[in-house]
């Protein structure tokens, strides 16, 4: 299982999923904006833009799912219930794992909502 990252104790893992959400949002919006402003520069059809958004969405959702799985592991695989509010190292770790898991859920839904217009829109409208 060398693919799975080791469990590390840092606050940064908390932000993984929201950062993926932000990156996916920017890729979708900036990509569509550039294509629709200068289609001749990109030289692709709008279907290619939709396919690109689909690929970005699959990648983003996979990364968020991975972040959620790691958070679940940090949370003790669901063996403990919140609130983790004792002033101990264990509770701090569990609390952070649980918070990361919730943020991953939020980011997962947000990425789906961001990508949904590409399901229905078939061309640029200026």
């Amino acid at each position, binding site marked *: 299982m060398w693919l799975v990252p080791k469990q590390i104790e840092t606050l940064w893992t908390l932000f993984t999923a929201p950062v993926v959400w932000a990156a996916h949002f920017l890729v979708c919006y900036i990509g569509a904006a550039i294509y629709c402003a200068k289609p001749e520069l990109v030289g692709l059809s709008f279907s290619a833009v939709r396919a690109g958004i689909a690929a970005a969405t699959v990648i983003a959702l996979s990364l968020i799912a991975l972040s959620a799985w790691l958070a679940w592991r940090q949370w003790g695989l669901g063996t403990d219930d919140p609130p983790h509010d004792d002033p101990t190292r264990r509770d701090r770790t569990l609390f952070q794992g649980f918070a990361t898991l919730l943020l991953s*859920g939020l980011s997962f839904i947000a990425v789906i909502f961001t990508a*949904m*217009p590409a*399901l229905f829109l078939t*061309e640029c409208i200026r």
Partner: protein
Amino acid sequence: MGRYFSLSAASLLLASGSAGAQTSTQSALESAGAEAQQIEMLFWVMLSGGTVIWLGVVGLLLHSALVNRRRLAEKSASSIILWGGVVFPSVTLCALLAYALWLMPGLRPFAQASPAALRIEVTGRQFWWEVVYHPPLGPPVASANEIRLPVGERVELTLKSADVIHSFWIPPLGGKMDMIPGRTNRLSIMATKAGLFRGPCAEYCGTSHALMALSAVAMAPEAFRSWLAAQAIPAEGAGASGGALFLRHGCGSCHVVAGTDARGLIGPDLSHIGSRATVAAGILPNTEDAVASFIARSDLIKPGSRMPAFDMLPPDDIRAIAAWLRGLR
């Protein structure tokens, strides 16, 4: 004399509100266009969805406060939060979002194989609307403060602004679209019922923003075509005697009246003002009194507009010009 005109102007303004309400509709809930119908449906779906959710939440609140006040076990409380607080809202929002997005291509059908036969260019100005029809055959036809369109035919609106941001919105016919300086926005509407509709400027644009409205007349296609053909040529009344006063007092430096020497481009085109439903951009009934009052005290009727008051003119001249303008049909 100034007082006479200011009093009559104020009473006209008061009267025009009720007069307008009887003849034209401005409600998004009385749709008379294909696009507006979809938007109305979207409103009712969202309202119904919101009502069901609100009733559910309030019912649950009352139930837990009045009926069942026993403390829930932590396990069942958690599952209520998971299913009622996370899964249900996510799925519901996803469904409502999908419905709204699914409507969008139909509201903006510009990419379809057959483009709209008629394009109408509307330019927002403080505080009136410049209108130019671009029929598939024949030269463009200029008008102002009123658009007419054929029932059952899709019309493409090209929306621009000459000064500040305005917003074009005829609620019974279609959605709202901003008019932004330096940009060209496009809106599609297709009237499904004949009628007279009112559209307000929907973005604050200055002192007389609330006095900037537009009439929209949906009419039978044949009637529309003969109307447009008549608009393309000078009105019959253009040669009548009031026209000389109109030119002598300088009105022609700001207004166009086809068939005369009046070629000013600062104010609305008045070539066929007599045939419009309203005057002064949708705020006054099209009567001789209203036109005369506007000429005399435009500064009171429409504060901040570029048209100066002409109450220094002899009242008989104002009357004669108003009568002549009313005859431009």
